[in-house]
C-alpha cells in the first residue's frame, strides 16, 4: 500500500488551513485599523461591532483631562520653580512638563475661570485601554459603559464611566483624585464582584487615566468646572480608649440628630427613640422601623433609574471597609449619587467618629454574630 495519496491529502489540508489562517489575520487587521478612527469615548453601542473589531488603540494624540486644582497646586508648591509661563510651551497662563506628562493652567475669559489640565498621551491611554479590556471590561464593558457581558443583570450594577457618577470614592469633591480612585480599585467593594485588584501602580495609573478619558465631552474629567479632590481628611480619633462612650453617643446621633433611621433601620425600641429625640409619648416613626427603606439614586442602567438599598448594618455587607477609620471616611464623604449625604460639615468630626464606632459595634455584634442578631431584632420588633 502506498502512502503517497494520504500524504498528498494531508499536505493539501495543511495548505488550505494556512491560507485561511493568513486570511483571517488579514481581515482582523483591516477591521481593527478601520475602526481605529473612533475615539474610545464615542457614544456607539458596544454591541454594534463584533468584539474582534474593537480597536485597542486610542487614536488622538493627546487628551486633556482635569487632574484637579488641589493636586495641581500641591505639585506647584512641592516643586517650586517648575511652573513656567514660557510662551513657546504654553498658549495660556503656563504650566510645566515632567516625566509624567504636561500640566497646564488655562484661563477662560468668558467665564472668568482658571482651569487645570493634564495632557495625557495616546500611548498611555492605549496601555490603559489594553489593561482595561483584560481586567475590567467583562463587567464594565468594552466601551466602559458599564454594560459588559458579565455585568448584565448584576445589582448593584457595574459603574458606567460615561456617567461621571461614583459612589464610594470617599471624597467631598464631585470627582475623586487619581489617588482616591487607585485606593478604591486596590481595595475593591466588598460583597460585589469588584474585588481588590492586585495590579501594579503603573498599570493602575494607566487604567485610571483611561477611565477618566471616557467622560463625555464637557463632563466628568473633561469638564473645566469639574471639582476634583482626594479622600476626605479624618481628624484624629477623639474617642480613642473610650469605645463604649463613643457607641452610646453614636446611637444617640444615629437615631436623633442625624436621622439615619429614616433610610437605615432603627436599632432601638420606639420608647428609646422618643427618649433620644425628646419626643412626646404619642409620636410615631416610619413603618417597619427596623428595616431599611429603598431609596432612589442618580444612576441609570439602560435608561432605568436605579434604586438603592441602604444597608442594614446587622445584615448587609458594607462596601468600602469596616474599620472605624473606613466608616468615618464613608460617613463623612457620603455616597455620591445616592440618598446618603455628605456629613463632613453637617456634623462635628467628633460626632461622625461616634457614628462610625456605633456602626462598627452593630457589624461586630450582630452581622458577624447572626445568632445574636435574631434575638436582638426579635426584641426590637416585639416578636
Amino acid at each position, binding site marked *: 500500500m502506498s502512502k503517497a495519496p494520504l500524504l498528498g491529502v494531508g499536505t493539501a489540508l495543511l495548505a488550505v488551513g494556512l491560507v485561511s489562517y493568513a486570511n483571517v489575520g488579514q481581515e482582523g487587521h483591516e477591521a481593527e485599523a478601520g475602526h481605529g478612527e473612533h475615539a474610545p469615548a464615542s457614544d456607539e453601542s458596544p454591541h454594534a461591532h463584533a468584539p474582534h473589531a474593537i480597536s485597542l488603540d486610542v487614536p488622538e494624540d493627546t487628551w486633556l483631562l482635569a487632574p484637579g486644582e488641589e493636586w495641581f497646586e500641591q505639585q506647584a508648591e512641592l516643586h517650586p520653580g517648575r511652573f513656567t509661563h514660557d510662551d513657546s510651551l504654553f498658549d495660556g497662563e503656563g504650566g510645566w512638563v515632567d516625566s509624567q506628562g504636561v500640566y497646564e493652567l488655562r484661563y477662560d475669559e468668558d467665564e472668568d475661570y482658571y482651569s487645570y489640565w493634564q495632557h495625557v498621551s495616546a500611548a498611555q491611554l492605549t496601555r490603559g485601554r489594553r489593561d482595561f479590556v483584560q481586567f475590567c471590561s467583562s463587567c464594565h464593558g468594552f466601551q466602559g459603559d458599564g454594560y459588559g457581558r458579565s455585568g448584565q443583570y448584576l445589582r448593584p450594577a457595574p459603574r458606567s464611566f460615561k456617567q461621571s457618577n461614583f459612589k464610594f470614592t470617599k471624597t467631598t469633591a464631585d470627582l475623586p483624585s487619581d489617588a482616591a480612585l487607585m485606593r478604591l480599585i486596590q481595595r475593591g467593594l466588598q460583597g460585589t464582584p469588584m474585588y481588590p485588584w492586585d495590579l501594579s501602580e503603573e498599570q493602575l495609573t494607566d487604567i485610571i487615566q483611561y477611565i477618566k478619558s471616557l467622560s463625555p465631552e464637557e463632563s466628568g474629567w473633561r469638564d473645566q468646572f469639574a471639582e476634583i479632590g482626594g479622600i476626605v481628611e479624618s481628624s484624629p480619633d477623639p474617642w480613642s480608649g473610650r469605645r463604649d462612650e463613643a457607641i452610646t453617643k453614636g446611637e444617640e446621633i444615629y437615631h436623633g440628630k442625624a436621622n439615619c433611621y429614616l433610610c437605615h433601620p432603627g436599632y432601638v425600641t420606639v420608647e428609646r427613640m422618643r427618649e433620644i429625640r425628646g419626643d412626646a409619648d404619642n409620636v410615631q416613626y416610619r413603618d417597619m422601623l427596623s428595616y431599611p427603606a429603598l431609596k432612589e439614586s442618580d444612576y441609570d442602567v439602560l435608561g432605568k433609574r436605579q434604586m438603592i438599598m441602604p444597608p442594614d448594618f446587622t445584615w448587609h455587607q458594607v462596601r468600602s471597609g469596616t474599620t472605624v477609620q473606613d466608616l468615618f471616611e464613608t460617613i463623612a464623604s457620603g455616597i455620591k449619587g445616592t440618598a446618603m449625604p455628605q456629613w463632613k460639615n453637617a456634623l462635628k468630626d467628633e460626632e461622625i467618629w461616634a457614628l462610625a464606632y456605633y456602626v462598627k459595634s452593630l457589624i461586630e455584634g450582630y452581622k458577624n454574630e*447572626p445568632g445574636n442578631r435574631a434575638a436582638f431584632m426579635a426584641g426590637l420588633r416585639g416578636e
Partner: protein
Amino acid sequence: MGDTTMGTDFEGWGARAGRLAARWGRTAWAGLLLASAAVAQGEVADRWGPNEPASTFGSRFDSLFWLITTLVSVSFLIVLVMLFLAVVRFRARPGSKAHYDRGNSLHDKRFTAVVSVTVFVVLDAWVLVIAMRDLREAHWKYPAADEPGVYEVEVLAQQWAWNFRTKGVDGEFGTADDIVTINELHIPEGRPIKFNLTSKDVIHSFFVPDMRVKRDLNPGAINMLWFQAAKTGTFDLFCAELCGYAHYMMGGEVYVLESDRFDAWEQEASRLAEIAYDAEDTEAHWAWDWKD
C-alpha cells in the same frame, strides 16, 4: 590495582550501593527528619487527606478514592518489587553475558496478555462498577420534583462571581421575595439541595470540595446538581474551570444552617429582598423557569 589504567574493574553491587548511600544518605536523613517532625506536629498530618465529607453521599466518593489509591499503590509496589528483583537477579557480573530479548516469544505474549486482562478485569472493571453504582445510586439520583423538602437554587456564574437565587418564602422563582446573593449561599441541613446551573459568559465550574460535588456551568445550557448536607458549618466554594484573569479570586462560601435557624434566615432574607425589589428594573429579574 594494576589494570586501573585500562578502565575500572566492574564495581560490585555492594560497593556501588555503599557509594550511592554515602552520596544520598545525608539528604535522605534530612528528609526523614523533616517528615517525622511534620507528623509529630500533628496539624500537618491532619491535612494530608481531604476534609471529612459534609454531604450524605460524600463517603461513597471517599471510599472510591481510597479504593483507587490502594489499588494503584499496590500495583505500583508489585511492579517495583519485580523490577528490584530483576535488577538484583540479572545484574551484570563476571562470566554472565548480556543478550537482547525481543520479548515476542509465545510465552512472553501469553504472559503479557494474561497480566493485562487480569489487571483490566480486576482493577479497572472493579473501579468502573463501583463508580457507576455510586453515580446511579447517589450523584445522578436527583430528588423528584414533588419530593417534599427539596430546596432549589439557581446559580448564574459570571466572570468572576457566583450569583445565587432562591425562591424565598413564597416558594416561587421570579417573584419579589426571591433571595439573590453574590458569592454566598445559605442552605438548610438535612434537606436535598437541587441546583440549576448556568453561566453568563464563559464556562465555569461549581466546586464544593467538602460536599464532594463539582459541575460545569455552560453558557446557554442549564446543568443540574444535587447534594444533601449532613452537617452544619461554612464550606468553601471554588470555580474549578479556568475562566479568565480573576479565576483565582472566584470563590464563595456555602453556609449550612440547622433547620430552625435556616427558616428564620430565609424569612428575614425574603422580607429584605421584598423591600429591595424594584418591579420596573426588569433587567435585574434574571430568574428562569426551573428545569428538572
